[in-house]
């Protein structure tokens, strides 16, 4: 236990921790902050988000045909209000834009009409008109819900068809803006966590070997068991870093105000997404967290073993370049973002988890066994 504490101290040197803070800060500023500051990103995203909330308030987490008719009625009512808005303005009546229908289909190529339309939509940003647009989008999604059958490129299997049918029948309400926003955020957070772990764990063995401490370590009473202890330290450190990063992220994510959607089912015609399981948004978030932990633990063992075998810093960093490219460009898309999506086989995620655990344990036991007999002087 004492050794683990000392080793933890070595990993979390003040210098490294400070650098990690600066790296995280810059990363947040460059990639993550955008999705906090610009959520919902402009209009009509803002209106779609608002109306989704209103729908949940009024209809609960599901919407049936009857409620949809009511939703349409609200739309008609607002349309009438928009008509009144237009008719109250002389210049719009004169330009022949006296009803919302005409306003919507107006030929904006003509300069004066284009300017009148821009005035309401972009200059005054009249809420009513943006809201109408958002409602139209949602109504369209609901009415064209059969288009969900085309979200997978290749021909559907019977199970996929079944899932899509269930989703269409359910009428689940979920905001596409919220879901998309979370997926973007968690992708970058996962990348940041991977970078943090690579950065902090890489020197773990290399440092000792470059200082020739390893000769002392292996010839004292604890002996080669220290290799195992240091691997465990790496796990503890990686777990701690991941927890801190995720904790910080979710603390900031609370500012996005998505509490209402946590109980929404993510299989929804409004997000145009179907998954293999009936997950609520909250369960989905938990699942991504589990994935990130599994990924980071496997990564930790790989990085630690690399650190034990690399002769110098250029090698350890150089070998992690392809690893990072692989993780960022491929693995995150399959293991963190939109997991359990219907496009992949149902057993993909469980087998990926099993594979990760297998790789991790194999590398772990293999390296421990190998280290027992390794010739240090060569």
């Amino acid at each position, binding site marked *: 236990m004492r050794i683990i504490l000392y080793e933890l101290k070595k990993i979390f040197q003040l210098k490294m921790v400070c650098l990690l803070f600066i790296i995280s800060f810059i*990363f947040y500023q460059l990639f993550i902050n955008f999705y906090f500051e610009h959520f919902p990103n402009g209009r009509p995203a803002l209106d779609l988000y608002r109306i989704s909330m209103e729908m949940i308030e009024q209809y609960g987490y599901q919407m049936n045909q009857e409620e949809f008719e009511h939703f349409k009625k609200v739309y008609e009512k607002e349309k009438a209000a928009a008509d009144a808005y237009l008719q109250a303005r002389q210049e719009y009546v004169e330009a022949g834009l006296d009803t919302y229908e005409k306003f919507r289909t107006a030929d904006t190529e003509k300069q004066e009409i284009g300017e009148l339309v821009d005035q309401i939509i972009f200059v005054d940003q009249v809420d009513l008109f943006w809201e109408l647009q958002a409602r139209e989008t949602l109504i369209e999604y609901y009415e064209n819900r059969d288009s969900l059958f085309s979200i997978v490129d290749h021909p559907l299997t019977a199970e996929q068809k079944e899932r899509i049918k269930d989703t269409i029948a359910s009428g689940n309400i979920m905001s596409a803006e919220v879901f998309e926003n979370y997926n973007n955020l968690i992708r970058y957070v996962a990348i940041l966590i991977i970078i943090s772990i690579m*950065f902090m764990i890489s020197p773990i063995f290399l440092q000792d070997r470059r200082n020739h401490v390893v000769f002392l370590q292996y010839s004292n009473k604890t002996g080669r068991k220290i290799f195992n202890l240091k691997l465990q330290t790496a796990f503890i450190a990686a777990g701690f870093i991941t927890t801190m990063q995720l904790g910080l992220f979710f603390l900031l994510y609370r500012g996005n105000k998505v509490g209402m959607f946590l109980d929404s089912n993510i299989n929804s015609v409004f997000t145009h997404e179907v998954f293999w399981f009936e997950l609520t948004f909250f369960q989905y978030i938990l699942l991504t967290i589990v994935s990130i932990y599994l990924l980071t633990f496997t990564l930790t063992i790989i990085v630690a073993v690399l650190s034990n075998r690399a002769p*110098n*810093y*250029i090698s*350890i*960093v150089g070998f992690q370049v392809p690893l990072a490219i692989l993780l960022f460009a491929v693995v995150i898309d399959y293991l963190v973002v939109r997991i359990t999506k219907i496009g992949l086989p149902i057993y993909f995620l469980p087998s990926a988890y099993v594979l990760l655990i297998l790789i991790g344990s194999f590398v772990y036991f293999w390296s421990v066994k190998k280290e027992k007999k390794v010739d240090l002087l060569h």
Partner: protein
Amino acid sequence: MNVWRFELKKAFQSPVVSILIMLFLFFNFWLIYNHAGIREELKVTNQLVERFGYKIDAEMSAKLQAYYQSKLQKMNELTRKKFGKTYERAGDFFSEYEYRSEVLSEEELHVITETAIVEGYYELIQEVDQKYSHLDLSKKAKADINKYGLSGKTAEVTREYYKKLNNRLDELIEAGEHKNLFFIGYVYRMHSFLFKDLMRQMIFEVMILVVLITGHVTTYEFQNQTHLTSYASKRGRKLMLDKLVANLLATLCISSVILGATLLVYFLVFDYSGLWGIPISSFFNNEFPFPYISWWKLPFGIYLSCVLVVFIICQLFFTVITYSIAVWIKNNYLVYAAFALLFGLCLLVPGIVPNTSSAIFWTRYTPFELILNPHLWFIGWNVFFPKNYIWMTSVIWTCLLAIVTVVTFLKFNKEQID
């Protein structure tokens, strides 16, 4: 000379360097391979240029029209025989094409495709004048000001910028620089592919290698605890100077390997014969409604060479930056982290300065910002790409890095390295 050789050996003896070079070359070839499907279609352009020259004028236009008509006639003969139908435009055929795919042989299909491409050229040529006369740069200035939320002084700079660009545009139209054939940018996006996708990928690849090697070579003595011997030898602390030279040489080596191999394959796959003299501001090179307007008249061949020169200059900058950091820090692991941080900071700063301060323009004069858009080098695209952008950045950073290197040397010469 001998010392340089040994230092270079340190750079390349690590297997990771050769593995990374192989891997990066594989990525580049893969990218080219994925894009190679259009190479047959591109050859039509070479044929047209060979036949009529690339300069578009009335005479050439007439010849092209005659050629197009004959092609269309041939195609219609073919379709009449096969489907009992003729077409006014070759493009019309393709809207019904998929039902007929089995009936046509490879060769026959080729005839029709070729006709459609020639037709594309013929029709676009008719639009050139109209497109350029409709360009209103003051509108673009307004759009830019809105888009980036500029005001006051910075808005003034933007308007000034577009006035200058407008002068250049007038000059360009006067000289007929835009009236040249090239691969159709709207369809094939060859400019973006070569100068954005491929070139930017190569910039990052070479940068990674250069930073890894420079950090390694510069800190080698300290990392292997040979510093007390080597810096006490006759060569002494001047060894650091040799390391700088070796690093610069290694950078040139790496750049030429990656650039040479990739571009060789690129130009073997995509045939540019006959097109090297065509100005980059050609109408056909445009990929977006807003055209590529180069600040000088740059034929494709010269443009490519200029881009390569800037490429190498940037890599030399990265070498010197890493080198200077390495002399100060002496632990190459931290050197890599410091370089990454510097990169991030230089990208971060232009994003957080207020939009009303002219700092949003001059904070972009860094090699880090520069390498993000290699496809817009020497081109007036928006207010952040002024005429002096490339050479000012190069000059400023050359001076800056010269000073930094001198200071670094002075410091290292008197430093306690024990």
